[in-house]
């Protein structure tokens, strides 16, 4: 009995130390990214391409009940600086029940030959399914996707298309910037989070030749690359993450362009935010399940790309493991068994990954505000801890739901769109 208890304690200790090592590895990764962004060489190789024979381009604007915002997005695209004879704007109206269709058709009538609406009245729900059907009607070389609430600047299309002159590039991604920053505490915290994610994380991965992620909006895809990896998959929750990895495994690169900025709306209520992050969690984990092993054995990728690609896929596993680690450390500390060292070891584990694992993310956010020259926002960082806790539990719940759902009969996916606030 005593022996088995000691064995259990040992096993739990090893588990705890493994979790600590795992979380610290992410902490080191984020510190590396932040230091690279602050002090390393920055790569923006394609942003200066301003004169070229531009390829044919179709801009897909995904819209499901978007009457509040769709007109603004389409007007911005109509004003875009791109050869009109090479540009097609295709709003993808997916079974909207509000005034979205009427607004699209009215704008198409006012701008003959510029807007080619794609109205979908039936079929599988979800953005990926809608894009898949619409893409079948696309004959251009490049597709750029926007959500309906985005307001692209005049030069954004050329910036997102320029990297495709590189024959290795399969997708491009710009920077998403929250517009409704000042609404409430949540929007301000999300603004910080987006800044860290794009200004530091994505750009550092671009600098280091790792794996920038295609984000599903403010991004472009080469049609030939898309077709070579099987097109859009409509049975996934995060079609952007899924596509990033299929392209990577197919030896197509994703390019991040930090200076290709576009406004978006972030969630203004915690309920919407929690649903959003739960969706991202499930989508990411689904991609990890589908592509993790394939990535490890894929040909034509560097070791760094494989390691970083796996780390990116596993990012939503960090939260639940963090909680588990806390519980293990506390339980082992207060238990009487201390097989490897004194209770100091558990305290050390708790403190070390608290310092390195958690603080790395905050260091990243602070660096982002520095680079963005918005130092005032950095004062809100301590409050981000509460947002972090909310995300932590939302992610853990999503993971738990996903594991339970995996055991249940399959349900149909539904378009779980984020609520719009602009009027």
């Amino acid at each position: 009995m005593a022996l088995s208890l000691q064995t259990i304690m040992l096993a739990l200790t090893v588990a705890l130390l493994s979790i600590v090592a795992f979380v610290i590895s992410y902490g080191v990764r984020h510190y590396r990214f932040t230091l690279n962004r602050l002090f390393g060489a920055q790569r923006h190789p394609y942003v200066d391409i301003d004169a070229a024979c531009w390829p044919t381009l179709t801009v897909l604007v995904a819209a499901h009940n978007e009457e509040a915002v769709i007109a603004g997005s389409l007007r911005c695209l109509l004003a875009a600086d791109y050869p009109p004879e090479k540009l097609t704007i295709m709003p993808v109206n997916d079974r909207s029940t509000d005034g979205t269709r009427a607004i699209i058709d009215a704008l198409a009538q006012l701008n003959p030959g510029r807007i080619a609406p794609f109205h979908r009245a039936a079929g599988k729900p979800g953005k990926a399914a809608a894009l898949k059907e619409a893409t079948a009607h696309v004959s251009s070389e490049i597709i750029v996707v926007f959500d309906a609430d985005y307001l692209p600047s005049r030069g954004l299309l050329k910036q997102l298309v320029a990297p495709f002159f590189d024959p290795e590039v399969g997708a491009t991604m710009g920077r998403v910037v929250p517009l409704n920053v000042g609404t409430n505490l949540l929007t301000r915290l999300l603004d910080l989070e987006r800044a860290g994610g794009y200004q530091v994380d994505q750009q550092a991965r671009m600098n280091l030749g790792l794996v920038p992620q295609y984000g599903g909006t403010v991004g472009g895809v080469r049609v030939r690359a898309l077709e070579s990896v099987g097109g859009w998959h409509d049975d996934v929750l995060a079609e952007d993450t899924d596509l990033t990895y299929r392209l990577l495994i197919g030896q197509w690169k994703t390019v991040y362009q930090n200076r290709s900025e576009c406004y978006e709306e972030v969630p203004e209520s915690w309920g919407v935010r929690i649903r959003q992050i739960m969706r991202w969690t499930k989508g990411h984990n689904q991609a990890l399940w589908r592509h993790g092993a394939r990535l490890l054995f894929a040909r034509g990728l560097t070791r760094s790309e494989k390691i970083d690609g796996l780390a990116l896929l596993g990012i939503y596993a960090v939260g639940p493991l963090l909680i588990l680690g806390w519980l293990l450390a506390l339980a082992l500390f207060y238990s009487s068994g201390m097989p490897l060292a004194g209770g100091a070891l558990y305290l050390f584990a708790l403190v070390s990954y608290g310092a390195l694992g958690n603080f790395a993310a905050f260091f990243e956010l602070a660096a982002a505000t520095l680079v963005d020259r918005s130092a005032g926002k950095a004062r809100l960082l301590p409050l981000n801890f509460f947002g972090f806790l909310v995300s932590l539990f939302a992610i853990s719940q999503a993971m738990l739901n996903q594991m339970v759902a995996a055991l249940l009969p399959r349900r149909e996916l539904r378009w779980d769109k984020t609520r719009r606030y602009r009027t």
Partner: protein
Amino acid sequence: MWALLLLATTALVFALPLAPALQELRRRTDVDPLPIDQEHACDVRHFARRFVALVERELAAIAQGTGRHLAAGYAVMGAGVFHAREDERRTRVSTRVLVAEGPLELPRNFSWLREVYGRHDVRGGCDARLRAVMAGGRLVLGPRAAVLRWAHARSVHALPDCVLLGRLSADEELVLEPGCRFTRIHAPTIVFGSVAVPGRTDRDDERRRALWRAPATAGPRSSALVAGRWVAQGDLEIPAGEVFRGDLVVRGDLVMRRGAGIDGSIKAHGDVRLEPGVCVAGAVVSTRSISAVGRCSVDGPIVAEREVRLGAGSVVGAAGAPATVTAPVIRVEPGVVVHGTVWAKEDGTISFADFVSA
């Protein structure tokens, strides 16, 4: 009591970092979204256009009498040589916006800290230092002239050893002589060096046309077809005269020997060397450096993350089909023609020196 004290101290330690946060939450000093210029379109002529619009507005206001306070900042003249005021002659510096209604000649060794606007031709003296210059006709920059922010004209001729910081653009043609340094230049036709050098000939153009008529090989040796592109792991050398169709990705260095051709685009993770007579129908992209040794033809953009060298007789882009050459450092020999943009993020030079031609 000690327990209360401990509790209070702990609470204070936890609350301290929150104080600036709560203050910012209340005062809302930084709640604006990151500024994005919705009108930004990477137009090299943006400054010139904005300047002309501003000047025309202000001159109209001066003429109407509503802009009397602006008049002191302007020097408006007809045609001919710029005549400086007494104080300007002494310091050889003008702080007024110069507007010339006719052909303008600028004196040598003079500095204009404000813009110069000639509605017709503008001819600058040697060693002139110009903040910005706009010419409705032809702009000639004298030897060793410097432009600090931007210059735009119908056509531009920069004489030897000019320093062209900022943007330089022309509606028709831009000619830069040896010794000039530049950052961002744009025109339908950019000619590097107007003196006779072994440049491109009609035979080169005929050879290029014949190249695309030649039968293509299946693909470069030691490469595999991946998703419609030829992918070579490691270094690759394409033999002289060989032509193939399709895009090419090389994980190492690429050398294309004399007269070879690709009907597609190239990406290399190492250095790229294009020997004389090489033709590329698409773009050339490298994570390191690109050397087009001489008489090469590249139809699409040239993008390098270290350096681009263009040898005499090379042509990038075509009339009506512009392209961009971009790298931190760009070295161009006289006798090169680019249709479109050349953008050296750090340093661009035109010289015969330190460029090894094959």
